[in-house]
Protein backbone atom coordinates (compact mmCIF):
# COMPACT_ATOMS: atom_id res chain seq x y z
CA UNK A 1 0.00 0.00 0.00
CA UNK A 2 1.60 3.30 -1.02
CA UNK A 3 1.89 5.98 1.59
CA UNK A 4 0.09 9.31 1.47
CA UNK A 5 3.20 11.21 0.37
CA UNK A 6 3.68 8.82 -2.54
CA UNK A 7 0.10 9.24 -3.66
CA UNK A 8 0.46 13.02 -3.55
CA UNK A 9 3.68 12.81 -5.58
CA UNK A 10 1.98 10.47 -8.05
CA UNK A 11 -0.82 12.96 -8.60
CA UNK A 12 1.71 15.79 -8.90
CA UNK A 13 3.62 13.78 -11.51
CA UNK A 14 0.58 13.19 -13.67
CA UNK A 15 -0.57 16.81 -13.33
CA UNK A 16 2.96 17.83 -14.27
CA UNK A 17 2.72 15.82 -17.51
CA UNK A 18 -0.69 17.27 -18.30
CA UNK A 19 0.30 20.87 -17.64
CA UNK A 20 3.87 20.75 -18.98
CA UNK A 21 3.05 19.09 -22.31
CA UNK A 22 1.99 22.20 -24.33
CA UNK A 23 5.29 23.84 -23.38
CA UNK A 24 7.12 20.93 -25.04
CA UNK A 25 5.19 21.57 -28.25
CA UNK A 26 6.08 25.24 -27.93
CA UNK A 27 9.79 24.46 -27.52
CA UNK A 28 9.73 22.22 -30.58
CA UNK A 29 7.96 24.84 -32.69
CA UNK A 30 10.37 27.52 -31.51
CA UNK A 31 13.40 25.36 -32.39
CA UNK A 32 12.00 24.60 -35.81
CA UNK A 33 11.35 28.29 -36.41
CA UNK A 34 14.89 29.23 -35.35
CA UNK A 35 16.45 26.63 -37.65
CA UNK A 36 14.47 28.16 -40.50
CA UNK A 37 15.84 31.64 -39.62
CA UNK A 38 12.46 32.77 -38.32
CA UNK A 39 11.87 34.27 -34.91
CA UNK A 40 8.86 32.07 -34.30
CA UNK A 41 6.11 32.38 -31.78
CA UNK A 42 6.70 32.29 -28.06
CA UNK A 43 7.23 28.92 -26.38
CA UNK A 44 4.01 29.52 -24.45
CA UNK A 45 1.99 29.90 -27.63
CA UNK A 46 0.31 26.45 -27.31
CA UNK A 47 -1.15 27.56 -23.94
CA UNK A 48 -2.53 30.74 -25.50
CA UNK A 49 -3.95 28.67 -28.35
CA UNK A 50 -5.72 26.33 -25.97
CA UNK A 51 -7.16 29.23 -23.94
CA UNK A 52 -8.29 30.96 -27.12
CA UNK A 53 -9.93 27.80 -28.43
CA UNK A 54 -11.73 27.13 -25.15
CA UNK A 55 -13.33 30.59 -25.33
CA UNK A 56 -14.54 30.11 -28.89
CA UNK A 57 -17.83 28.70 -30.09
CA UNK A 58 -18.01 25.25 -31.53
CA UNK A 59 -19.44 24.31 -34.92
CA UNK A 60 -20.68 20.75 -35.29
CA UNK A 61 -21.95 19.31 -38.53
CA UNK A 62 -25.61 18.26 -38.37
CA UNK A 63 -24.67 15.08 -40.20
CA UNK A 64 -22.52 13.88 -37.32
CA UNK A 65 -23.55 11.57 -34.50
CA UNK A 66 -22.64 11.32 -30.82
CA UNK A 67 -19.30 9.76 -31.76
CA UNK A 68 -18.08 13.04 -33.18
CA UNK A 69 -19.04 14.96 -30.06
CA UNK A 70 -17.76 12.47 -27.49
CA UNK A 71 -14.53 11.50 -29.22
CA UNK A 72 -12.42 14.48 -27.96
CA UNK A 73 -13.47 13.71 -24.40
CA UNK A 74 -12.67 10.02 -24.76
CA UNK A 75 -9.34 11.03 -26.28
CA UNK A 76 -8.47 13.35 -23.44
CA UNK A 77 -9.62 11.00 -20.69
CA UNK A 78 -7.82 7.98 -22.15
CA UNK A 79 -4.52 9.80 -22.62
CA UNK A 80 -4.87 11.65 -19.31
CA UNK A 81 -5.37 8.29 -17.59
CA UNK A 82 -2.24 6.96 -19.26
CA UNK A 83 -0.34 9.89 -17.74
CA UNK A 84 -0.99 8.47 -14.27
CA UNK A 85 1.19 5.42 -14.93
CA UNK A 86 4.28 7.29 -16.08
CA UNK A 87 7.10 7.92 -13.59
CA UNK A 88 8.67 11.34 -14.07
CA UNK A 89 10.95 12.28 -11.19
CA UNK A 90 10.06 9.50 -8.74
CA UNK A 91 11.16 6.18 -10.20
CA UNK A 92 7.87 4.49 -9.39
CA UNK A 93 4.33 5.66 -9.73
CA UNK A 94 1.97 4.66 -6.89
CA UNK A 95 -0.70 4.01 -9.50
CA UNK A 96 1.61 1.54 -11.23
CA UNK A 97 -0.07 -1.23 -9.27
CA UNK A 98 -3.14 -0.81 -11.44
CA UNK A 99 -1.69 -1.03 -14.91
CA UNK A 100 1.46 -1.69 -16.87
CA UNK A 101 2.91 -0.45 -20.13
CA UNK A 102 0.53 -2.60 -22.17
CA UNK A 103 -2.39 -0.72 -20.62
CA UNK A 104 -0.77 2.57 -21.66
CA UNK A 105 -0.48 1.33 -25.24
CA UNK A 106 -4.07 0.10 -25.04
CA UNK A 107 -5.28 3.52 -23.89
CA UNK A 108 -3.43 5.13 -26.79
CA UNK A 109 -5.10 2.65 -29.13
CA UNK A 110 -8.51 3.48 -27.67
CA UNK A 111 -7.93 7.19 -28.20
CA UNK A 112 -6.75 6.61 -31.73
CA UNK A 113 -9.70 4.34 -32.48
CA UNK A 114 -12.16 7.04 -31.52
CA UNK A 115 -10.24 9.67 -33.48
CA UNK A 116 -10.51 7.48 -36.56
CA UNK A 117 -14.22 6.87 -35.98
CA UNK A 118 -14.79 10.61 -35.62
CA UNK A 119 -12.93 11.21 -38.86
CA UNK A 120 -15.25 8.79 -40.64
CA UNK A 121 -18.33 10.04 -38.81
CA UNK A 122 -18.56 13.47 -40.44
CA UNK A 123 -18.32 11.79 -43.86
CA UNK A 124 -15.98 14.34 -45.33
CA UNK A 125 -13.42 13.03 -47.78
CA UNK A 126 -10.53 14.40 -45.73
CA UNK A 127 -11.68 12.54 -42.64
CA UNK A 128 -11.96 9.36 -44.68
CA UNK A 129 -8.46 9.39 -46.05
CA UNK A 130 -7.06 10.59 -42.74
CA UNK A 131 -8.66 7.62 -41.01
CA UNK A 132 -7.37 5.17 -43.57
CA UNK A 133 -3.84 6.54 -43.32
CA UNK A 134 -4.00 6.57 -39.55
CA UNK A 135 -5.18 2.97 -39.59
CA UNK A 136 -2.33 1.93 -41.87
CA UNK A 137 0.24 3.64 -39.68
CA UNK A 138 -1.12 2.22 -36.45
CA UNK A 139 -1.32 -1.26 -37.96
CA UNK A 140 2.39 -1.06 -38.71
CA UNK A 141 3.51 0.86 -35.64
CA UNK A 142 1.86 -1.24 -32.98
CA UNK A 143 3.71 -4.51 -33.68
CA UNK A 144 6.96 -2.56 -33.71
CA UNK A 145 6.08 -0.90 -30.41
CA UNK A 146 5.16 -4.24 -28.85
CA UNK A 147 8.41 -5.82 -30.02
CA UNK A 148 10.37 -2.93 -28.52
CA UNK A 149 8.48 -3.19 -25.24
CA UNK A 150 9.19 -6.91 -25.35
CA UNK A 151 12.95 -6.28 -25.46
CA UNK A 152 12.74 -3.82 -22.57
CA UNK A 153 10.51 -6.10 -20.47
CA UNK A 154 12.81 -9.07 -21.06
CA UNK A 155 15.82 -7.05 -20.00
CA UNK A 156 14.34 -5.54 -16.86
CA UNK A 157 11.95 -8.31 -15.98
CA UNK A 158 8.28 -7.42 -16.17
CA UNK A 159 6.08 -5.05 -18.08
CA UNK A 160 5.24 -2.79 -15.15
CA UNK A 161 6.60 0.68 -15.95
CA UNK A 162 7.51 1.42 -12.34
CA UNK A 163 9.42 -1.88 -12.14
CA UNK A 164 11.22 -1.19 -15.41
CA UNK A 165 12.26 2.33 -14.41
CA UNK A 166 13.31 1.29 -10.90
CA UNK A 167 15.52 -1.49 -12.30
CA UNK A 168 16.94 0.61 -15.09
CA UNK A 169 17.84 3.42 -12.68
CA UNK A 170 20.17 0.96 -10.93
CA UNK A 171 21.76 -0.61 -14.00
CA UNK A 172 23.66 0.88 -16.90
CA UNK A 173 22.84 1.04 -20.57
CA UNK A 174 26.35 -0.10 -21.52
CA UNK A 175 25.87 -3.54 -20.00
CA UNK A 176 22.69 -4.16 -21.99
CA UNK A 177 23.52 -3.66 -25.69
CA UNK A 178 20.05 -4.85 -26.75
CA UNK A 179 18.69 -1.61 -25.34
CA UNK A 180 20.42 0.53 -27.98
CA UNK A 181 18.49 -1.37 -30.62
CA UNK A 182 15.31 -0.94 -28.61
CA UNK A 183 16.08 2.75 -28.21
CA UNK A 184 16.52 3.28 -31.96
CA UNK A 185 13.27 1.43 -32.62
CA UNK A 186 11.48 3.41 -29.92
CA UNK A 187 12.73 6.70 -31.37
CA UNK A 188 11.38 5.85 -34.83
CA UNK A 189 8.09 4.74 -33.29
CA UNK A 190 7.78 7.98 -31.34
CA UNK A 191 8.27 9.97 -34.54
CA UNK A 192 5.51 7.90 -36.11
CA UNK A 193 3.11 7.95 -33.19
CA UNK A 194 3.30 11.71 -32.80
CA UNK A 195 3.20 12.35 -36.56
CA UNK A 196 6.61 13.99 -36.73
CA UNK A 197 8.34 14.76 -39.95
CA UNK A 198 9.41 11.72 -41.88
CA UNK A 199 5.89 10.45 -41.17
CA UNK A 200 3.72 13.52 -41.38
CA UNK A 201 4.03 17.24 -41.03
CA UNK A 202 2.02 18.47 -38.08
CA UNK A 203 2.58 22.13 -38.98
CA UNK A 204 0.61 22.27 -42.21
CA UNK A 205 -2.87 21.39 -43.33
CA UNK A 206 -1.93 20.31 -46.82
CA UNK A 207 -3.75 17.35 -48.28
CA UNK A 208 -0.57 15.43 -48.99
CA UNK A 209 1.09 15.84 -45.63
CA UNK A 210 -1.72 15.19 -43.22
CA UNK A 211 -2.10 11.97 -41.31
CA UNK A 212 -3.36 12.84 -37.89
CA UNK A 213 -4.58 16.33 -38.80
CA UNK A 214 -6.98 15.10 -41.47
CA UNK A 215 -9.07 13.13 -39.00
CA UNK A 216 -9.53 16.13 -36.71
CA UNK A 217 -10.04 18.71 -39.45
CA UNK A 218 -13.74 19.17 -38.68
CA UNK A 219 -13.24 20.07 -35.03
CA UNK A 220 -13.38 23.58 -33.64
CA UNK A 221 -13.58 25.37 -30.31
CA UNK A 222 -13.35 23.36 -27.12
CA UNK A 223 -13.16 20.03 -28.88
CA UNK A 224 -10.15 21.14 -30.90
CA UNK A 225 -8.51 22.44 -27.72
CA UNK A 226 -9.02 19.05 -26.07
CA UNK A 227 -7.62 17.21 -29.08
CA UNK A 228 -4.55 19.42 -29.39
CA UNK A 229 -3.92 19.15 -25.70
CA UNK A 230 -4.28 15.38 -25.61
CA UNK A 231 -1.91 14.95 -28.53
CA UNK A 232 0.61 17.14 -26.66
CA UNK A 233 0.18 14.96 -23.57
CA UNK A 234 0.67 11.82 -25.64
CA UNK A 235 3.88 13.22 -27.07
CA UNK A 236 5.24 14.09 -23.63
CA UNK A 237 4.27 10.64 -22.30
CA UNK A 238 6.20 8.94 -25.12
CA UNK A 239 9.21 11.22 -24.66
CA UNK A 240 9.30 10.59 -20.92
CA UNK A 241 8.98 6.85 -21.55
CA UNK A 242 12.05 6.87 -23.79
CA UNK A 243 13.94 9.00 -21.26
CA UNK A 244 13.00 7.07 -18.15
CA UNK A 245 13.46 3.64 -19.68
CA UNK A 246 16.76 4.22 -21.45
CA UNK A 247 18.51 7.14 -19.72
CA UNK A 248 16.99 7.35 -16.22
CA UNK A 249 20.07 8.96 -14.68
CA UNK A 250 19.29 11.12 -11.72
CA UNK A 251 15.74 9.93 -11.20
CA UNK A 252 14.82 9.83 -7.53
CA UNK A 253 14.22 6.39 -6.05
CA UNK A 254 12.84 7.52 -2.70
CA UNK A 255 10.60 10.25 -1.39
CA UNK A 256 12.93 13.04 -0.24
CA UNK A 257 12.82 16.67 -1.24
CA UNK A 258 16.41 17.24 -2.55
CA UNK A 259 16.38 14.03 -4.62
CA UNK A 260 12.98 14.84 -6.07
CA UNK A 261 14.09 18.38 -6.99
CA UNK A 262 17.23 17.18 -8.78
CA UNK A 263 15.16 14.47 -10.47
CA UNK A 264 12.66 17.04 -11.71
CA UNK A 265 15.33 19.46 -12.95
CA UNK A 266 17.27 16.70 -14.71
CA UNK A 267 14.09 15.42 -16.30
CA UNK A 268 13.22 18.86 -17.63
CA UNK A 269 16.73 19.26 -19.05
CA UNK A 270 16.68 15.79 -20.65
CA UNK A 271 13.21 16.09 -22.14
CA UNK A 272 13.99 19.55 -23.53
CA UNK A 273 17.20 18.23 -25.11
CA UNK A 274 15.29 15.34 -26.67
CA UNK A 275 12.57 17.67 -27.96
CA UNK A 276 15.13 20.06 -29.43
CA UNK A 277 16.98 17.21 -31.13
CA UNK A 278 13.74 15.88 -32.60
CA UNK A 279 12.96 19.39 -33.87
CA UNK A 280 16.44 19.60 -35.45
CA UNK A 281 15.89 16.22 -37.09
CA UNK A 282 12.55 17.46 -38.36
CA UNK A 283 14.10 20.47 -40.01
CA UNK A 284 16.73 18.27 -41.67
CA UNK A 285 14.52 15.65 -43.34
CA UNK A 286 11.76 15.95 -45.86
CA UNK A 287 8.50 14.12 -45.53
CA UNK A 288 8.68 10.63 -47.01
CA UNK A 289 6.25 9.27 -49.52
CA UNK A 290 3.46 7.43 -47.70
CA UNK A 291 4.33 4.06 -49.15
CA UNK A 292 7.99 4.44 -48.22
CA UNK A 293 7.10 4.81 -44.54
CA UNK A 294 6.85 1.03 -44.03
CA UNK A 295 10.61 0.95 -44.84
CA UNK A 296 11.29 3.04 -41.77
CA UNK A 297 8.99 0.95 -39.59
CA UNK A 298 10.60 -2.21 -40.96
CA UNK A 299 13.90 -0.79 -39.73
CA UNK A 300 12.39 -0.33 -36.29
CA UNK A 301 11.09 -3.91 -36.32
CA UNK A 302 14.42 -5.30 -37.51
CA UNK A 303 16.20 -3.29 -34.85
CA UNK A 304 14.02 -4.70 -32.07
CA UNK A 305 14.45 -8.19 -33.50
CA UNK A 306 18.23 -7.89 -33.22
CA UNK A 307 17.63 -6.59 -29.70
CA UNK A 308 15.86 -9.86 -28.88
CA UNK A 309 18.78 -11.81 -30.42
CA UNK A 310 21.24 -9.86 -28.29
CA UNK A 311 19.17 -10.53 -25.19
CA UNK A 312 19.35 -14.30 -25.68
CA UNK A 313 23.11 -14.18 -26.28
Amino acid at each position, binding site marked *: MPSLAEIVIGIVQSLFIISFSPLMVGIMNKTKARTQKRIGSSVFQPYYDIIKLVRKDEVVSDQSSWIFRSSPWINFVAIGTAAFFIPIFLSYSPFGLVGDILLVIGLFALARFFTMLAGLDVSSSFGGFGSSREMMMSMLLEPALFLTIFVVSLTYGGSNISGIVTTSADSSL*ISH*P*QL*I*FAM*IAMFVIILGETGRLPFGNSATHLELTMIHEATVLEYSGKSLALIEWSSAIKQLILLSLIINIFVPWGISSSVSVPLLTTGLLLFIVKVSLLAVSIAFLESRVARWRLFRL*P*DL*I*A*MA*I*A*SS*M*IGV*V*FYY*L
Partner: protein
Amino acid sequence: MIFSGAILLIATFGIVTRRGFADWLGAYRYQSIVLAAVTALIAYVTGIWEIYIAAGLTLVIKSIIIPKVLLYVTRNLEIEFKVETNPYVSLRASVIISAFLVALSYFLTQQIPFKSDPIVSTYLPISIALFLIGLFVIVNRRSALNQVVGLLIIENGLFLFTLTLTHGVSLIIEMGIFADILVGIIISSILLLRISRTFDSLDVGKLQNLRDD
Protein backbone atom coordinates in the same frame (compact mmCIF):
# COMPACT_ATOMS: atom_id res chain seq x y z
CA MET B 1 32.72 -4.32 -25.90
CA ILE B 2 29.52 -5.92 -27.09
CA PHE B 3 28.29 -2.33 -27.21
CA SER B 4 30.76 -1.46 -29.98
CA GLY B 5 29.65 -4.57 -31.86
CA ALA B 6 26.06 -3.38 -31.63
CA ILE B 7 27.04 0.01 -33.07
CA LEU B 8 28.87 -1.73 -35.93
CA LEU B 9 25.73 -3.73 -36.75
CA ILE B 10 23.63 -0.57 -36.73
CA ALA B 11 26.08 1.08 -39.16
CA THR B 12 25.79 -1.96 -41.42
CA PHE B 13 22.02 -1.68 -41.42
CA GLY B 14 22.46 1.92 -42.43
CA ILE B 15 24.17 0.72 -45.61
CA VAL B 16 21.53 -1.91 -46.37
CA THR B 17 18.72 0.63 -46.31
CA ARG B 18 20.31 3.14 -48.68
CA ARG B 19 19.19 3.25 -52.29
CA GLY B 20 21.34 5.87 -53.95
CA PHE B 21 25.04 5.54 -54.73
CA ALA B 22 26.17 8.63 -52.81
CA ASP B 23 23.92 7.66 -49.88
CA TRP B 24 25.38 4.24 -49.36
CA LEU B 25 28.86 5.55 -49.91
CA GLY B 26 28.33 7.91 -46.99
CA ALA B 27 26.91 5.09 -44.88
CA TYR B 28 29.90 2.93 -45.83
CA ARG B 29 32.17 5.71 -44.64
CA TYR B 30 30.45 5.70 -41.25
CA GLN B 31 30.70 1.91 -41.05
CA SER B 32 34.43 2.08 -41.76
CA ILE B 33 34.94 4.67 -39.06
CA VAL B 34 33.12 2.42 -36.59
CA LEU B 35 35.20 -0.53 -37.82
CA ALA B 36 38.39 1.44 -37.22
CA ALA B 37 37.19 2.24 -33.69
CA VAL B 38 36.45 -1.46 -33.10
CA THR B 39 39.92 -2.35 -34.39
CA ALA B 40 41.51 0.16 -32.05
CA LEU B 41 39.47 -1.32 -29.20
CA ILE B 42 40.75 -4.82 -30.05
CA ALA B 43 44.28 -3.42 -30.13
CA TYR B 44 43.74 -1.88 -26.71
CA VAL B 45 42.38 -5.13 -25.24
CA THR B 46 45.05 -7.41 -26.70
CA GLY B 47 47.86 -4.89 -26.33
CA ILE B 48 49.39 -5.60 -29.75
CA TRP B 49 50.63 -2.32 -31.21
CA GLU B 50 50.49 -3.51 -34.83
CA ILE B 51 46.70 -3.54 -34.71
CA TYR B 52 46.72 0.22 -34.06
CA ILE B 53 48.43 0.64 -37.43
CA ALA B 54 45.77 -1.55 -39.02
CA ALA B 55 43.11 0.64 -37.41
CA GLY B 56 44.74 3.78 -38.77
CA LEU B 57 45.02 2.24 -42.22
CA THR B 58 41.34 1.24 -42.08
CA LEU B 59 40.39 4.77 -41.19
CA VAL B 60 42.46 6.36 -43.95
CA ILE B 61 41.88 3.89 -46.78
CA LYS B 62 38.30 2.79 -46.22
CA SER B 63 36.72 5.98 -45.00
CA ILE B 64 38.63 8.47 -47.15
CA ILE B 65 40.41 6.98 -50.15
CA ILE B 66 37.91 4.34 -51.33
CA PRO B 67 34.88 6.69 -51.32
CA LYS B 68 36.93 9.36 -53.10
CA VAL B 69 38.14 6.91 -55.73
CA LEU B 70 34.66 5.54 -56.31
CA LEU B 71 33.18 9.01 -56.64
CA TYR B 72 35.96 10.06 -59.02
CA VAL B 73 35.69 7.04 -61.27
CA THR B 74 31.90 7.13 -61.53
CA ARG B 75 31.55 10.90 -61.94
CA ASN B 76 30.52 10.58 -65.59
CA LEU B 77 27.88 7.90 -65.02
CA GLU B 78 24.31 8.98 -65.42
CA ILE B 79 22.17 9.25 -62.33
CA GLU B 80 19.76 6.45 -63.22
CA PHE B 81 22.60 3.95 -63.10
CA LYS B 82 23.47 5.04 -59.61
CA VAL B 83 20.14 4.59 -57.84
CA GLU B 84 18.81 1.17 -56.99
CA THR B 85 15.22 1.59 -58.14
CA ASN B 86 14.09 -1.99 -58.44
CA PRO B 87 15.90 -4.56 -56.29
CA TYR B 88 14.78 -8.19 -56.39
CA VAL B 89 13.58 -8.06 -52.78
CA SER B 90 12.21 -4.73 -51.58
CA LEU B 91 14.41 -2.81 -49.18
CA ARG B 92 12.03 -3.11 -46.25
CA ALA B 93 11.97 -6.89 -46.63
CA SER B 94 15.74 -6.97 -47.01
CA VAL B 95 16.15 -5.17 -43.67
CA ILE B 96 14.05 -7.87 -41.99
CA ILE B 97 16.02 -10.59 -43.82
CA SER B 98 19.27 -8.99 -42.64
CA ALA B 99 17.98 -9.14 -39.07
CA PHE B 100 17.32 -12.85 -39.58
CA LEU B 101 20.84 -13.25 -40.96
CA VAL B 102 22.24 -11.68 -37.80
CA ALA B 103 20.19 -14.16 -35.75
CA LEU B 104 21.47 -16.99 -37.97
CA SER B 105 25.09 -15.99 -37.50
CA TYR B 106 24.63 -15.88 -33.74
CA PHE B 107 23.02 -19.31 -33.90
CA LEU B 108 25.94 -20.65 -35.96
CA THR B 109 28.64 -19.32 -33.70
CA GLN B 110 26.89 -20.67 -30.62
CA GLN B 111 27.97 -24.11 -31.87
CA ILE B 112 31.66 -23.18 -31.80
CA PRO B 113 33.21 -23.47 -28.31
CA PHE B 114 35.09 -20.16 -28.15
CA LYS B 115 33.45 -18.93 -24.99
CA SER B 116 36.67 -18.32 -23.10
CA ASP B 117 37.97 -15.53 -25.34
CA PRO B 118 35.85 -12.38 -25.00
CA ILE B 119 37.04 -10.87 -28.30
CA VAL B 120 36.15 -13.95 -30.31
CA SER B 121 32.80 -14.50 -28.64
CA THR B 122 31.90 -10.83 -29.21
CA TYR B 123 33.07 -10.12 -32.72
CA LEU B 124 33.02 -13.51 -34.48
CA PRO B 125 29.20 -13.60 -34.84
CA ILE B 126 29.22 -9.97 -35.97
CA SER B 127 31.85 -10.60 -38.63
CA ILE B 128 29.91 -13.59 -39.95
CA ALA B 129 26.76 -11.48 -39.92
CA LEU B 130 28.54 -8.80 -41.99
CA PHE B 131 29.65 -11.50 -44.41
CA LEU B 132 26.12 -12.89 -44.81
CA ILE B 133 24.55 -9.45 -45.15
CA GLY B 134 27.09 -8.45 -47.81
CA LEU B 135 26.39 -11.64 -49.74
CA PHE B 136 22.66 -10.97 -49.53
CA VAL B 137 23.13 -7.40 -50.74
CA ILE B 138 25.11 -8.61 -53.78
CA VAL B 139 22.45 -11.17 -54.66
CA ASN B 140 19.60 -8.75 -54.08
CA ARG B 141 20.66 -5.65 -55.99
CA ARG B 142 20.07 -5.31 -59.68
CA SER B 143 22.40 -2.48 -60.57
CA ALA B 144 26.00 -3.65 -60.94
CA LEU B 145 27.34 -0.45 -59.40
CA ASN B 146 25.37 -1.00 -56.24
CA GLN B 147 26.59 -4.57 -55.96
CA VAL B 148 30.01 -3.14 -55.15
CA VAL B 149 28.67 -2.17 -51.71
CA GLY B 150 28.03 -5.84 -50.93
CA LEU B 151 31.64 -6.56 -51.79
CA LEU B 152 32.76 -3.78 -49.46
CA ILE B 153 30.60 -5.07 -46.60
CA ILE B 154 32.00 -8.58 -47.11
CA GLU B 155 35.50 -7.18 -47.08
CA ASN B 156 34.85 -5.38 -43.79
CA GLY B 157 33.43 -8.60 -42.37
CA LEU B 158 36.48 -10.58 -43.47
CA PHE B 159 38.81 -7.98 -41.99
CA LEU B 160 37.02 -8.28 -38.65
CA PHE B 161 36.99 -12.07 -38.97
CA THR B 162 40.77 -12.38 -39.42
CA LEU B 163 41.38 -9.82 -36.73
CA THR B 164 39.27 -11.63 -34.13
CA LEU B 165 40.57 -15.10 -34.87
CA THR B 166 44.26 -14.32 -35.23
CA HIS B 167 44.54 -11.14 -33.13
CA GLY B 168 46.27 -9.43 -36.03
CA VAL B 169 48.03 -11.14 -38.92
CA SER B 170 51.39 -9.70 -39.80
CA LEU B 171 51.41 -6.14 -41.04
CA ILE B 172 52.73 -7.01 -44.50
CA ILE B 173 49.65 -9.12 -45.19
CA GLU B 174 47.34 -6.38 -43.95
CA MET B 175 48.97 -3.87 -46.28
CA GLY B 176 48.62 -6.35 -49.13
CA ILE B 177 44.93 -6.80 -48.43
CA PHE B 178 44.36 -3.05 -48.38
CA ALA B 179 46.20 -2.56 -51.67
CA ASP B 180 44.22 -5.46 -53.10
CA ILE B 181 40.89 -3.89 -52.16
CA LEU B 182 41.91 -0.54 -53.59
CA VAL B 183 42.94 -2.07 -56.91
CA GLY B 184 39.85 -4.28 -56.91
CA ILE B 185 37.58 -1.27 -56.49
CA ILE B 186 39.29 0.60 -59.31
CA ILE B 187 39.16 -2.37 -61.68
CA SER B 188 35.52 -3.09 -60.92
CA SER B 189 34.50 0.52 -61.44
CA ILE B 190 36.35 0.67 -64.78
CA LEU B 191 34.63 -2.57 -65.76
CA LEU B 192 31.31 -1.02 -64.77
CA LEU B 193 32.03 2.00 -66.94
CA ARG B 194 32.71 -0.26 -69.91
CA ILE B 195 29.52 -2.23 -69.22
CA SER B 196 27.45 0.93 -69.05
CA ARG B 197 28.91 2.15 -72.37
CA THR B 198 28.35 -1.15 -74.13
CA PHE B 199 24.92 -2.10 -72.85
CA ASP B 200 23.51 1.31 -71.92
CA SER B 201 22.48 -0.21 -68.62
CA LEU B 202 23.98 -1.58 -65.45
CA ASP B 203 21.11 -3.97 -64.77
CA VAL B 204 22.70 -7.37 -64.24
CA GLY B 205 19.49 -9.05 -65.36
CA LYS B 206 20.06 -7.70 -68.85
CA LEU B 207 23.63 -8.93 -69.07
CA GLN B 208 22.44 -12.48 -69.61
CA ASN B 209 21.24 -11.81 -73.13
CA LEU B 210 23.72 -12.39 -75.90
CA ARG B 211 24.19 -9.63 -78.41
CA ASP B 212 25.13 -10.66 -81.90
CA ASP B 213 25.55 -7.37 -83.65
